[in-house]
């Protein structure tokens, strides 16, 4: 417990700091309402245009809509870009201070990154729940609303899966951070990974709606665990043994990415270039 204290402190200080950015949270919420709204209207048009294909779809329209709002609400939980604090410290050279601290640099950056994502996601998710979960049904648009999970089991699976998603995202964020430390700039790597995450986390389109032949590959790749698996568990599209497999995949990728990240970090830090000035 004593050994964990500096990391807990790093987590809570970053978490509380980021919660102060209320205007950013509201701006993010507005953005996510726009994207979510467009997506919901487009999905509804497609489902209405082809009733046969809609009936055969692995997800119902109601499930897709709830998935869409949740994906927008939890957008900040995916590692969209390198941790800006790490990118800044690499650019200014203050990364050297992080190396001098008597704590494990990997763990320090890991918990700070986790706090960064969690604190940005929390207010946005709360606002989205209020907007899409409460206000939409109240103004008579309950067909378009964010619905509660269908069963208690789905809710429980989601509750286990969400922290796992954060752990997995943080492990991936560390890989991005390490690439930033090696290349000294975050611009290229951010753009590159952005695209991968948008597609393979299910943010662009629920993974279940891609062609049937791609389904297995889409489920076992690491990005699915950052968003798609928890959301499928929530809407009940993944249940029983499928749910257990989903949680297992999340845990597996978290461990694998942490091991990979630690190995890469050791290599990069051995001959780290520190910019000064």
């Amino acid at each position: 417990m004593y050994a964990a204290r500096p990391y807990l402190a790093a987590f809570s200080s970053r978490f509380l700091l980021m919660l102060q950015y209320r205007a950013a949270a509201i701006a993010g919420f507005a953005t996510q309402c726009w994207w979510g709204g467009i997506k919901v209207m487009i999905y509804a048009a497609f489902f209405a245009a082809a009733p046969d294909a809609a009936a055969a779809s692995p997800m119902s329209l109601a499930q897709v809509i709830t998935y869409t709002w949740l994906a927008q609400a939890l957008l900040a939980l995916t590692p969209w870009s390198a941790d800006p604090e790490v990118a800044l410290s690499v650019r200014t050279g203050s990364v050297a201070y992080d190396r001098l601290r008597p704590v494990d640099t990997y763990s320090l950056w890991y918990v700070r990154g986790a706090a960064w994502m969690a604190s940005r996601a929390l207010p946005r998710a709360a606002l989205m729940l209020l907007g899409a979960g409460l206000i939409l049904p109240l103004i008579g648009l309950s067909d378009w609303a964010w619905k509660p999970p269908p069963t208690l089991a789905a809710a429980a699976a989601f509750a286990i899966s969400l922290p796992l998603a954060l752990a997995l995202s943080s492990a991936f964020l560390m890989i991005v951070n390490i690439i930033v430390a090696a290349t000294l700039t975050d611009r290229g790597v951010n753009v590159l990974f952005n695209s991968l995450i948008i597609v393979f986390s299910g943010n662009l389109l629920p993974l279940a709606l891609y062609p049937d032949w791609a389904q297995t590959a889409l489920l076992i790749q690491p990005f699915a665990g950052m968003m798609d698996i928890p959301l499928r568990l929530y809407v009940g599209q993944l249940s029983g043994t499928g749910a257990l497999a989903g949680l297992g995949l999340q845990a597996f990728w978290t461990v694998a990415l942490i091991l990979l990240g630690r190995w890469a970090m050791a290599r990069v830090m051995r001959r780290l270039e520190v910019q000064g000035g």
Partner: protein
Amino acid sequence: MNSLRLILRYFSASLRSQLQYPGSAIMLGIGAFLTTIIDMLAAWALFDRFGQVQGWGLGHIAVFYGVVSTSFALTDFFTRGFDVFGNEFVKTGAFDRILLRPRSPALQLVGYEFRLSRFGRLAQALLVLFVGAAVVGVDWTPDKVLLLAWTITGGVALFTGLLVLQASFAFWTTESLEVFNVLTYGGIQAAQFPLSLYAGWFRNFLIFVVPLGCVAYYPVLAILDQPDPLGAPDWWLPTAPAMGFAFLAASFIAWRAGISRYTSTGS
């Protein structure tokens, strides 16, 4: 002539600075490529599963998307200065220096940075546009080529107007409002599908408030030789991109108003 030479010098300086980080520049290019592919990916998957929507196919969506994305890529190439205006100029007080120089502020902001990576997006957008047009069988007669150029010019005017408006707001908020990304990046997303898919209030927003529909949906209907399923008159379809210029003019009124009330942050 003087202004043109100045722009060219800005351009070469910007080019050289971006090539200082070659690894990053290459990844930015690949990223731009992937982003464009991604924009079409969701549409492709949906058509693969559902077949069609209100009679539209993937080829139609590709043309809508290609037109609006080409406009945005061209705009994004030279409007970086307006994009970061709040954070990099107003908040820091750097706008004082711009005002002191004997050139128009808008010109200097255009020269702030020319983003090379946008050529990736432009190439992809044009590719999607012409492949889509080939799939739906567009016959590129001279008047259609002209209409396409007019549509894209209107689109560039509209997106530039959005960026100028975003920068103008910074005079009041002293910060860049990233909410505007909703209207640029989000606008591409919205305008790649026919307006007839959307609810009425959202359609009206895209016609009358931020006229994205006028620089994509209506003129593309004319290019595709389709009447508007919602009943807009035929003469309107090729005229609609003019709304982009009206929007740009309105944005510059806001920009002027912003400059006249600018007070430095003093930092």
